[in-house]
């Protein structure tokens, strides 16, 4: 779901009602990106606030409504990377909480937790391509643009990522889960 051009123009004029509409439209999506990129629900909520606030402050850098999603994802990458560094430091303290579910709408707690566990064990570049291609539904070319890599690299990461995900799913997926049947790009 791309950004409505009318809403884009209203946000460019610093209309606060427009920004609130944009935030409502993207809050869930940005939160999902942050969770599937490895943050817990509390950190993802904080990161989502930061991502959307940064988007507002730097909106002049976004060239068009059609480019907004990709531009927002670039902000997400940076903010989540910073947040993960902070989370990593926290892990040296004996205070780590058990993982908790992040979504109330979706495939259910068991599948969500299993997917997150599998993605967390994949190499980050493969997990990112799976997130963008299989979860978010971007095309191979769009993913290439988003991560700044050639489409061939995207296809390679996608193939490797899916193979690894399949193996992990067999090991970590919910009991009784059927073998995966995903299509090649």
């Amino acid at each position, binding site marked *: 779901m791309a950004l409505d051009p009318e809403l884009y123009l209203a946000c460019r004029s610093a209309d*606060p009602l427009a920004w609130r509409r944009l935030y409502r439209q993207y*809050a869930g999506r940005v939160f999902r990106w942050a969770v599937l990129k490895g943050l817990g629900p509390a950190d993802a909520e904080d990161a989502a606030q930061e991502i959307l606030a940064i988007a*507002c*402050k730097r909106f002049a850098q976004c060239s068009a409504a059609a480019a907004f999603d990709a531009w927002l994802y670039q902000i997400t990458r940076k903010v989540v990377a910073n947040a993960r560094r902070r989370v990593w430091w926290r892990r040296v303290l004996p205070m780590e909480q058990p993982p908790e579910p992040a979504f109330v709408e979706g495939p259910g707690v068991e599948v969500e937790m299993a*997917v997150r566990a599998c993605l967390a064990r994949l190499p980050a570049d493969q997990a990112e391509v799976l997130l963008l291609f299989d979860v978010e539904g971007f095309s191979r070319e769009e993913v290439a643009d988003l991560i700044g890599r050639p489409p061939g690299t995207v296809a390679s990461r996608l193939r490797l990522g899916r193979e690894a995900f399949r193996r992990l799913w067999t090991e970590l997926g919910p009991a009784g889960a059927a073998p*995966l049947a995903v299509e090649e790009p």
Partner: protein
Amino acid sequence: MSDPLAALRDARPAPSVEHRIVEGAMARAAGPQRRTWSLALAGVAVAAAAVLLTFALRPAGEPPGALAPAVDAPTPVVRTETPQMRYQVTEGADAVFRVETPVPNQTVVHLSAGTASFAVEPVPPGGFFAVETPHGRVEVVGTRFSVTVGERCTRVAVTEGKVRVRREADAVLVPAGETREICRGGPAGEAVMRAALQDLAGGRTAAARARLEGYLAAWPDGLFAEEALFHLALLARREGDAQAAAAATTRYLTRFPSGHRADRLRAAP
């Protein structure tokens, strides 16, 4: 589960989490950016240096906290020029105001009655110049404007540049040549506008039109008058009523010839 990844495509957090994200982002976007502790320490050091410099440069006998002009100054024109900010206040005969400068690049004029005019150089990054009245706040982007406080409303007239007029969480930019009012009934007007926008989003066009016209009748110079006229014009176009669309567009352009949506209305077929 053949494709657990695709199953997460529509995964969403609880509505309360989404609400907190929206409100948190609004607050962060409106306020200063959060800093890491090291940057905060650097900021404290810079602020301390600025305070020391301020005290060192103050003429003998001037009381602390008097960097800004005096309260209810008897002279008609107040000028301030610091390395951080330059502005000029011309007070009307009935103006009652005081100036606060909590830090050198931030100035707040509290105007409780009467009229005062302002000329402000572009505000430096991180700073602001604002006029607080009993009805709301006018934030300066770098401009000439006047503010009149009445019993029920505050009227802002912009001569040059633009200002941001704010009431609580809502704000609009007012360009040169235009006026806006912030009234005690503001929140009621905002509620009408919000309901109208919800009606528009939900396709309830008749209800939306009634609310927009109702808003304009009740608050003709209100904070959202421009937005109401703009949406009336769009609504008429969406419904394919060329005559009504032309009339609504003319109404908008007559009232807000340099409004920030004027070009969009002129450009649209």
